[in-house]
């Protein structure tokens, strides 16, 4: 039976901890007292479920909203209105938001609802002044499981996209890519103007963390706003599903630590079906902004590898190596 998956998100201010810097950011929190996190809380559903997200904002003096790239027929409502399809917002003929937004000091909340029609990994992100708000941290992930994902008797058991899509896995890792311009964050957080032409990030993140913090475990106590690590520990022969999603503004090339992986899905569409297998192998993949690429690495031998940005100027923190968009893959016998 399809379920109704409810998620509450509060837009809040927080402080990112990057190696050598504390950076103010805007993030989504699961409650008004919980810290906001980067990326935002993961929304997990099963294909066919209805996802209902309630967005609240009591901290930021700007309108905020949510967009759901890859989802169709998204509806929205506020306390005093009925459900209606989302639509861009214009004021005096000028677009002010790509979707319906919640203005500060008005309604308590805005809701968005849609049916998660097909499995995959998707972004959710701010649709209002996104050039600022997405960079400030207003993005998160939705993971939609195929029906029967948790039922061992199902052919879809522990697959990303269901039977015969070649997406069965033993280990799953969400890897959300991004970049941080500390000067921009400081100015925007202080309410100052920022000229986006000056955008020049000097931190490169996976799940909001830069190496060596990427190597720390999930929910590390020293990183309250960046709960997700990205290090992978596996045994030879295990199928590691790397779900790479580019939430940043730039294109990122990620190299698989010298190993080959099989690209099994792009932008939440599996590349194989029972009729046609169009998967292919790569040592590195290039993700455009907003895109996702899913790779299964099945190491045949032990080894200690580093998944990393192949733009080697992005495996630094500002100027110093090691750092940035890099995480460890440890394979043991």
């Amino acid at each position, binding site marked *: 039976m399809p379920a109704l998956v409810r998620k509450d998100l509060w837009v809040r201010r927080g402080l990112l901890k990057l190696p050598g810097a504390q950076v103010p950011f805007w993030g989504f929190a699961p409650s008004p007292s919980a810290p906001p996190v980067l990326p935002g809380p993961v929304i997990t559903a099963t294909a066919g479920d209805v996802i209902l997200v309630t967005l609240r904002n009591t901290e930021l003096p700007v309108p905020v909203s949510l967009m759901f790239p890859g989802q169709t027929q998204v509806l929205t409502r506020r306390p005093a209105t009925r459900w209606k399809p989302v639509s861009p917002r214009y004021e005096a003929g000028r677009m002010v938001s790509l979707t319906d937004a919640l203005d500060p000091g008005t309604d308590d909340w805005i809701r968005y609802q849609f049916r998660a029609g097909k499995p995959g990994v998707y972004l959710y992100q701010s649709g209002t002044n996104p050039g600022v708000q997405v960079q400030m941290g207003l993005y998160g992930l939705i993971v939609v499981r195929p029906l029967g994902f948790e039922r061992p008797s199902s052919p879809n058991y522990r697959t990303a996209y269901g039977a015969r899509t070649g997406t069965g896995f033993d280990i799953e890792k969400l890897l959300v890519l991004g970049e941080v311009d500390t000067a921009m964050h400081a100015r925007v957080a202080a309410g100052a103007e920022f000229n986006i032409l000056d955008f020049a990030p*000097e931190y490169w993140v996976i799940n909001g963390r830069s190496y060596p913090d990427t190597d720390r475990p999930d929910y590390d106590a020293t990183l309250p706003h960046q709960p997700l690590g990205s290090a992978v520990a596996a045994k030879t022969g295990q199928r590691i599903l790397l779900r790479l999603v580019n939430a940043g503004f730039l294109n990122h090339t990620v190299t698989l630590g010298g190993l080959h992986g099989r690209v099994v899905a792009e932008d939440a569409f599996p590349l194989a079906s029972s009729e046609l297998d169009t998967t292919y192998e790569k040592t*590195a993949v*290039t993700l455009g902004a907003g895109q996702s690429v899913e790779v299964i690495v099945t190491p045949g031998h032990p080894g200690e590898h580093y998944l990393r940005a192949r733009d080697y100027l992005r495996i630094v923190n500002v100027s110093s190596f090691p750092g940035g968009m890099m995480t460890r893959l440890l394979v043991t016998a």
Partner: protein
Amino acid sequence: MATIDLWVKDGYLSTPDGNSIYFWGFSASPDGRAQVPGPHLVVRQGEQVTVNLMNTLPLEPVSIVFPGQWPVSVDGRLARPQYDQAGNLVSFADHAPPDRGVISYTFTPERPGTFLYESGTHPHKQVPMGLYGALVVRPADYDPGDPAHKTAYGFGTDTEFDREYLLITGEIDPELNNAVGEGRPYPVPRFRPRYWTLNGRCAPDTMLPDRVPHLPHQPYGSMVMGQPGEKILIRLAGAGVDNHPVHPHGNHVRVVGADGRLLRGGTDLSGRRFTVLVGAGQTWDLVFSWTGLGFTPENPIPTVLPNRRNLGVGDAGWTMWSGSPYLGQKGDIPVGVVSFNEFGEYYFMLHAHEEHKITNWGEFPGGMMSMVAIYPSLSPAVGTLP
């Protein structure tokens, strides 16, 4: 079993606008010069390869990683990342210490294809400084004397070729390179490439032959030459930090391999492309056949004459055009225009399609650009790798 020796040295690169840029490179012999890219390594599938690395840099350790080759062993155990005493990562693999340190890597390529090799130590600095090269793995059944077995990926894989070229893309910020040479800080956020390279050279040097004496550190040319109808294998490898869309101007290629893997799993994924994005750290294998302008061996007369504006006749005052629509013949060219055409061959560009990358410090023509030349007849010795 193949044994390859590589020395890490420094030197100065030459660019067509007269610049001289400090760099680090691999050399194939103790007396040889550092070069960019490093020596083209050509090995055979299933045969063990040992690479001995000698590091002459006085201060920096150096390692080599071989993306797509694993396991790689050092001293009979797996190569492993190196950390300093504080636990900071230094190298992705065992490194040769500075000042004449030595390290030796051994691996057996399991599959044919085109691969990169590059420094795994301080790669934010050492790779842009020039410590990269390409590795070609021949299929186990490779036989250059038998057309059915002269292939990129093995008999029956539809990757036969008559000639082959290896083009490695890169980019250079001379300020950062020279900062390294002068021992100044290396400010990564200030990286602004001014030169974009094919095989370490900028156009028009890319069109010069291999091993011209005045480019001692940049031994490889990038001119793609062939005859009509031949299968020309172009191996593209992205060694720099940026992505570069590259194409033979006005022509299509058939993409047959990526990152050292035949594009044929359950399904034949090879296909025709106008431009491929040579992503950082990635490789493409393309098969190109010129049958352009209506040319067939039975009909040597092009059926569509190119527009003169597409022939480089103009402000530049020179042309690569023969002046004749007939392959192998020369004809009249406009008065005052110099023709670099030798004997009626047909030229068209091969270039990065981010057009600011076909400049040398902003001046067109230059950068990541070369020519494809179709000759009426051409020695079989042209377009071979060692």
